[in-house]
Structure formats: structure tokens, C-alpha cells
């Protein structure tokens, strides 16, 4: 039917526009072809037939109004009034966005977390490794390129995921599945900013990966020949698994801060348990004796001995200070937990 219609229209213009047939003949089929090749196959013929008829009707009305055949420019104006072929075809597709307004807020939230996580992990690893690099500045510049590539990749992957969700009309019902009751309780604990939560979680990930030896950091002690290396003493070996469990627990708590920033009793209990476990680990370390050893070449053995003594010497006060902070943190969490179960004092009504 399409070809018949187009041919009929061409014939119509051949008769009514002497001298201009060549261009008119060209313009309308070229316009229709430009639209058609962008349409879904199953609808293309039907849409083009209707579009062709609509163009012919409009030109016919124009000619009736002018009382003469439409000139090339006037026909071109009619075609322009229908819109650019890309725009016209896209309107028929029914899709004028990659990610619609339903998913868009979640898309940006996911990007902030996903890309933020990649950047934070990359920067932490780069910073620590740069400290032991021979040329730290050039090392950092090289590394930043890799981090940016990772961030772009993360952005692209998340975008693809959301485009797929949009295309498949997946309703995450995220906007419907919330309750004002689950919003953060500011009077108990001001929720961390998303940036802070993401950065903290990234630090947890880097620590866990380092602890299970997936990634390495330089352990050379700066010196004349770089022959001195720092090693954990035996005391750490028996604590490897408990520290890993505590690190995973901490990461889980920080992940929950990203996904569900509100304070909850469960989070408080987990946090208190984590603090108790952390203090137990500190206590074992405190009593264990030397925590690091330094190996070196024979000519630097005396200096290695002094370095090891110095580091082991400051470990005691450092462990004490960390323990004090954790004890305070645990006390605060316990206080919040008690506050949350105490009956609330009525407050003045809020005018809206």
C-alpha cells in the first residue's frame, strides 16, 4: 500500500508542479525514506503510508490556499513542519529517554555510590602505594589515569544496567517501598553523608583485600639501600581470622550506612559487638610482645634492630589510644541504644 500511495502522490505532484517535479519527486520520498529506515520493521510500512498521506493532504491544502501549485521551497517548508526524520521516527518509537523519571533518582544515587566507591578505593590504594614508590609524583599521575578509566567504566556499566531496567519496564518499587518510620533518627545519631559512608566503606574494602593478600603495599623502610623490610610478628598470625571477621563486620555496617543510613537497634548491637571484638583483639596484641620485625642486610642489621624497637615501642601507646576511642565509641552506642528504648518525651507540635 505504501508504494502505491507514494507513487500516487508523486503522480499528483508531477501533474501539478511543472518544472519542479524532479525536486518534488526527490524530496518527499527522500524524507519518507529517512524516517522509514529509523522505524521498527513491523510498523514501518503502515507509518510511512499514513505519513505520506498526511504530507500530501497538507500540500494539497497549501496549494488550495495559494491557488497554484506549491513551489519547491513551500514543499520543503511543509516537510520541515513535520520535523526532522530522526525526531519523527523517535516519536513513533515511543521512547524519548534512556532512563525515565521513575528510575532517574535511583540512577544518580547508584552512580554516586558506585563511581564514588571506585574513586575512593583507587585513591586509597594509589596513595598508600605512592608512599613506597621510587618516583611518587609520576606514580600518582600514572595511577590517576587508571582510576579515571575505572570510574568511567563503572559509570558506563551502571548506566547500561539502568537502561536495561528501563527497557524491560522493571519496576523496582523503590519509591513505593519506603516508610517515614525508617528515615534516619537525627536525634539519636545524625546520619553520615553519602560521601563519608562511601569513603569509609572503600577503606574497609581496601583493608580487607590487603589483609587477605589480594593487593600488596610496599613494606620497605626508607633507608640508604632500601634493604629493610617491615613484617608482622607472630602475634598477628593467630589473630588473622578474628581481624578478618571484624573487618567484614565493619564493612557490613558501613555498607548498611550507604543503603539504609538510618540508625537502628540492630546496627547498634552489631556495632557494640564489633567494638567488643576490637577491644579483645587490642588486648591480645597488647599482651603479645613485639608486633613487628624488621629484616635487613647484614650491614644494616643494627639500624633494623633500632627501627623495630622504635616501632614496637610506640605500638603500646597507639594501641592504648585506639582502645580508648573504641571504648568511648562503644559507650556512645550503648547510650543511644538505651535512649531508643526509653519512653519519648512529648515535643511541641510542628507547624507545617
Amino acid at each position, binding site marked *: *500500500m505504501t508504494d*502505491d*500511495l507514494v507513487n*500516487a502522490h508523486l503522480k499528483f505532484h508531477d501533474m501539478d508542479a511543472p518544472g519542479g517535479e524532479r525536486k518534488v519527486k526527490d524530496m518527499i520520498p527522500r524524507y519518507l525514506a529517512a524516517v522509514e529506515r529509523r522505524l521498527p520493521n513491523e*510498523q514501518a510500512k503502515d*507509518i510511512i*503510508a*499514513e*505519513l505520506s*498521506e*498526511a504530507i*500530501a*493532504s*497538507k500540500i494539497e*491544502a497549501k496549494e488550495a490556499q495559494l491557488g497554484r501549485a506549491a513551489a519547491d521551497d513551500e514543499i520543503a517548508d511543509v516537510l520541515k*513542519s*513535520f*520535523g526532522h526524520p530522526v*525526531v*519523527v521516527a523517535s*516519536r*513513533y518509537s*515511543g521512547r524519548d529517554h534512556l532512563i525515565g523519571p521513575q528510575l532517574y533518582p535511583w540512577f544518580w544515587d547508584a552512580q554516586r555510590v558506585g563511581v564514588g566507591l571506585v574513586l575512593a578505593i583507587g585513591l586509597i590504594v594509589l596513595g598508600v602505594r605512592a608512599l613506597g614508590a621510587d618516583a611518587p609524583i609520576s606514580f600518582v599521575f600514572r595511577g590517576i589515569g587508571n582510576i579515571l578509566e575505572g570510574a568511567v567504566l563503572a559509570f558506563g556499566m551502571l548506566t547500561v544496567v539502568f537502561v536495561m531496567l528501563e527497557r524491560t519496564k522493571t519496576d523496582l518499587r523503590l519509591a513505593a517501598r519506603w516508610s517515614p518510620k525508617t528515615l534516619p533518627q537525627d536525634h539519636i545519631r545524625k546520619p553520615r553523608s553519602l560521601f563519608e559512608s562511601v569513603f569509609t566503606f572503600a577503606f574497609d574494602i581496601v583493608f580487607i583485600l590487603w589483609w587477605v593478600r589480594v593487593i600488596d603495599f610496599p613494606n620497605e623502610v626508607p633507608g640508604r639501600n632500601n634493604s629493610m623490610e617491615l613484617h608482622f610478628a607472630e602475634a598477628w598470625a593467630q589473630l588473622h581470622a578474628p581481624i578478618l571477621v571484624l573487618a567484614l563486620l565493619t564493612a557490613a555496617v558501613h555498607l548498611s550506612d550507604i543503603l539504609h543510613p538510618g540508625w537502628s537497634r540492630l546496627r547498634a548491637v552489631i556495632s557494640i559487638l564489633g567494638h567488643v571484638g576490637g577491644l579483645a583483639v587490642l588486648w591480645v596484641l597488647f599482651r603479645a610482645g613485639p608486633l613487628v620485625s624488621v629484616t635487613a642486610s647484614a650491614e644494616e642489621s643494627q639500624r633494623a634492630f633500632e627501627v623495630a624497637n622504635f616501632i614496637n615501642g610506640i605500638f603500646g601507646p597507639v594501641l592504648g589510644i585506639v582502645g580508648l576511642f573504641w571504648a568511648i565509641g562503644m559507650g556512645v552506642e550503648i547510650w543511644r541504644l538505651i535512649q531508643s528504648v526509653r519512653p519519648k518525651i512529648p515535643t511541641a507540635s510542628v507547624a507545617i
Partner: protein
Amino acid sequence: MPISPEIIETLRLELRRGTLILAVLGALRTEKYGYMLKSELGEQGVEIDEGALYPMLRRLESQGLLTSEWREDAKRQKRFYRLSADGAAALSQLTEEWRGMNRALDRILKESGQ
């Protein structure tokens, strides 16, 4: 500071967007082909681009609110649209909604001295 024409144009388009569907459904209580519909709406003061009208007609048809058929008219094949039974029910509900909003808006605008 005067409001920029772009902002006014955006607001105008947002205001018109939903009402165009109501105008199209209302006009198609009697059968029309695309160009006839556009012309009649234009005469009533509702201008709509062809680029928006034809995709809208197909969408409304795919939603079951319109039916269409190809037929010869003035020696050319034309696609005629008309309201389906579901379309008539939808039009009735939307009209009720529109009138309610119109009354409410009238009251608000009168109270604000517009």
C-alpha cells in the same frame, strides 16, 4: 527581573501536554483522518504539530482508546480514526477530571485576582 521567554514557553508546553490528549479524544467522537483532525482542532484554537499528532494517534490506538481503518476519500487512501468504546469511557472520566480541575483553578485564579 523579567521571566525569560524560555521559562514561559516550557511552562506553557507542560500546561498543554495533558490537555492535547483530551482534545484529540474529544474531537474523535466523530470519525476523522489525521489532517482533518489537525485542521479542526486548529479552528477550535488547539494547535498541534503533525510530528506530535500522528505518533499520539498511534499510541492511543495501541492503548485501545481509538480504532482506525484505511479508506478511500477524495481519490486517496486515508486512515480514519474514531473513539473506541474504551476510549469513550476514558474520555468521560478524563472530562470529569478536567472539569473538576477547571472549576478549582477558576476559583483559585479568581481569589488571586487573575
